[in-house]
């Protein structure tokens, strides 16, 4: 399908933005641009009839409400990383932000755009590849038989192994962040861990977002005082690359025993991966190598691998051990 043109509209306010997208089944919000413009204009794998630009809506800034941080969707990655509360209370969020993209991109890229980024899978992004269940449900998955390295091993299956490549989302799912959504029926709140959908037999449906629904804010609970947290990103090159495996963790240790643990994983999941399995192993256990190894083992259970991603099983475990060692040392 090729369109000869795409209608461009600039929304006056949130309600009209929602209405302008809702009224046209092929319309899309346009906020930052990396994903949507690339996919529509360069890669030509999505075919919107209309862009509704929300870039000038007053959805920018970070506010603190008690022990929660409310981040408007158009806040940039650099702005959030520089926020004093993030620096003081959410170091793993700051680290994840600053290990993502490049400075230039982080000055433009928005938090909402980061949460809603599409996969970087080259099979999804190349329209000359016929088999992509995410683009054309039922067409198959060329990546499974192709070159897979930047692909998922958790939440993946025969229908799709496309990775959710966000760094930021890894600590956000670990921290029980909540997204605020708006459509004609009004606002609703969805925990980020419920927001993303693993591919199953519908890889084209990636979130619970309804057509015309706008992500307006993300709310991040602050870590209790005395919590240690960090984020680690393992990748082939030192900068400006998505992670092969990443991990964010926050723990509290009391007298050598882990009393609270949050673990998120990146580079491995079709969705930003919250590892409750690892957390269950950690809480109540001594903060030692044996516990960390058991947590890693629990986290990477039943991976779905292809030849190019087999190494990630071991690498992800070692990444988990490393982050746990880091936040407990």
């Amino acid at each position, binding site marked *: 399908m*090729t369109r*000869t043109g795409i209608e461009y509209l600039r929304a006056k306010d949130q309600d009209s933005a929602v209405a302008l997208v809702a009224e046209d089944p092929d319309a899309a919000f346009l906020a930052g641009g990396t994903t949507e413009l690339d996919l529509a204009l360069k890669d*030509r794998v999505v075919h919107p009839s209309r862009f509704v630009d929300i870039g000038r809506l007053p959805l920018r800034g970070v506010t603190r409400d008690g022990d929660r941080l409310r981040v408007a969707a158009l806040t940039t990655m650099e702005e959030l990383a520089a926020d004093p509360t993030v620096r003081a209370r959410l170091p793993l969020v700051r680290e994840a932000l600053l290990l993502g993209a490049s400075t230039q991109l982080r000055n433009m890229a928005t938090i909402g755009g980061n949460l809603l980024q599409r996969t*970087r899978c*080259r*099979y999804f992004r*190349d*329209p*000359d*590849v016929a088999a992509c269940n995410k683009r054309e449900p039922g067409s198959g998955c*060329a990546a499974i*038989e*192709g*070159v897979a*390295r*930047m692909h998922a091993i958790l939440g993946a299956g025969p229908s799709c192994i496309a990775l959710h490549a966000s760094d930021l989302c890894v600590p956000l799912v670990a921290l029980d962040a909540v997204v605020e959504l708006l459509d004609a029926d009004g606002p609703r709140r969805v925990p980020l861990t419920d927001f993303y959908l693993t591919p199953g037999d519908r890889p084209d449906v990636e979130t619970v977002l309804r057509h015309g629904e706008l992500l307006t804010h993300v709310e991040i609970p602050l870590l209790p005082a005395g919590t240690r947290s960090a984020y680690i990103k*393992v990748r*082939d*090159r*030192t*900068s*400006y*690359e998505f992670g*092969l495996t990443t991990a964010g963790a926050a723990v509290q240790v009391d007298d050598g025993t882990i009393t609270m643990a949050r673990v998120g994983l990146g580079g491995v999941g079709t969705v930003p991966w919250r590892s409750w399995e690892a957390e269950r192993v950690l809480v109540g256990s001594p903060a030692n190598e044996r516990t960390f190894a058991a947590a890693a083992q629990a986290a990477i259970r039943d991976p779905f691998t292809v030849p190019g991603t087999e*190494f990630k099983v*071991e*690498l992800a475990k*070692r*990444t988990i*051990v*490393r982050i746990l060692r880091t936040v407990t040392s």
Partner: protein
Amino acid sequence: MTTTLTKQSLLGRPIDRIDGRRKVAGAAPYPSDFDLPGQAHAALVSSTIANGRITRIDRSAAEAAPGVLLVLTRDNAPAVADPPMSNLGSTMRWYFRDDRILHYGQHIGIVVAGTRAQAQAAARLVEVEYAAEEPVLDLDDPRATIEENPYGLDSSRGDAAAALDAADVTVDSTYTIGAEINSPMGLFTTVASWQGGRLVVHDTTQFPSMVRASLAAMFGVPERDVRVLIPFLGGGFGAGLRLWSHTVLTTMAARELDRPVKLVLTRPQMFSSTGHRAASRQRMRLGATQDGRLVAIDHDAVAANGIGDMLPAPIEMGTPMAYACDNVATHERRAHLNIAFTGFMRAPGSVELHFALESALDELAGKLGIDPVELRLRNYAEVHPESGKPWSSKALRECLTVGADRFGWSGRDPSPRSTRDGDLLVGQGMAEASFDFYAQPCTVRLSVDRGGNALVRTGATDIGTGTYTITAQLTADLLGIEVDQVRVELGDTDLPPAPQSGGSGLAGALGAAVKDAAAALGERLARLDGRPGETIASLLDRHGLDELSATGHSDLPAAAATTDLAVAGPFAATFAEVGVDEELGVVRVRRLVSVIDGGRLYNEKTARSQIIGGTVMGIGAALLEEAAYDPHTGRVANGTFGDYLMAVNADVPDLDITFVGGPDAFNPVGTKGLGEIGIVAVAPAIANAVHHATGRRIRDLPITLDKLL
């Protein structure tokens, strides 16, 4: 910096590029910056299979699309003649000569429209049906056509097999390198325009004279009626040394439409349209005495090549001259695969050879318990090992000793896994490199005028390496004027003929031609009875002359055939320190020292930049770069800058680069080419450092973390 310079000489001084300001101000026109009145825009149609035949192409939907002026496929394209062989021994296989598909991304049509967007949209409407077959993509695939000794360079001196049998110690290792793609930043562009009977082409090329000869032959016009322009080029790295089909298609479309046509390749198209370093596998067998004398080198190599292609990028060429060893045998094969046509990616063959040879030397050093630097010094080729002639210059010994000194090599504990820094294993490795001499004839026209200014004109290209600057610097030096009094015109085939920017051969040939022109001009000036201390300007003025010109020529290949010297290329030694996070497999380069014998330098700054660029590319080759092919379709699965990883700043430590050696005795200016030598020893030095750090010998590039887990 130990090159000797005469006190007044401009040569060698690290002056800024004379075109630097224009470049950073956006005033230097690259091919994609050219737009001609009435120009139409083109987009390519590319195959989505790698092997088979086209059974049907339907142009109708594309032809009916908005703005479309022309759709050319082999069904309606005019016939063209085959292009001639270039001096590099390569020619182009014209895709439209039959219905075969040889590789994924093969150009099967061109669509021309009023705007680029219209052309690209319409290109997607061309319907193509194929009879597809499984592509042959692997060097070991039994279906691959194998050519033995394709370059006639298989060589034998002494009896390597017997010497291996008799050797005290042997190494027998196999090394593989994945395909690498030199997708330069500047997207390859052709702007073609038929002006009367004359063809004018702005084309991204390192070899404008070859493009001119090829297009003239293909389109049946005299060479003088083809003008190829490339004043500035946004990176080549060898990608611009062949004629590629997009240039022919754009030229053809311009002729069919009788209006200028512009084509800019997309980034993914760059990964299958402008060449690459082929995947290779080498078996290297070394034999040595207990005290570290090499008695045998047996080198067996196989590299990929396109189907029906014949690109000469021999791996074995440098093997016999690398070390003083009485028994050397080389064998090479070429495997024809359904891959895009390969090219001359920076130091083709030499990068591959030195990864294998210098890794094997490191393995041998370990077995013998001899320091790797010492092992190389013990087998130093004081004279050319094949001819026995003295080298025209060779400061490789200084490269090794100065490098070891600057690096602090003597403090190294030779045992693997002996050094730690926190969580990291630290390793130090080194490698050396000998690069072949290469040159082609070159002509320049040199003029001086009454203002005391000089003009140098030649059809050479500056591919970003500083050709404008070093030409001005040399000319100013020879004429005794200032650099800013010299104007240099390049990148135009209407100028005197010059060879390609390639093979590290241009600077030496061009400099020799400039020197010849300056000598000829000097003779003419001498006949004007100059007074002591009189300037050229005053001399011309006194004689009422507006300007004086002379043509200079160099033919270094002819001179090399008759000299008593073994004509040397540049030499290098590279020392690398890596840190390896063993738990995660991550390798990072911590320090890198390269010492280069490039003969006499034109400009220490542009020379250093060349070596920096080569080194950065070498770090990419060692740790990051590999084109991945889809096993079933042959598509380059990582054909974007986001997916194909090159080194970024954060991967590159501070580089310590030093030049040693004096003027080369063969080249009239004393110089040797620096465009490629910087990359050659980097990957083996890093691989050897990884072994020293971890005890793990990785014989497969790139060394990605999964190989160390």
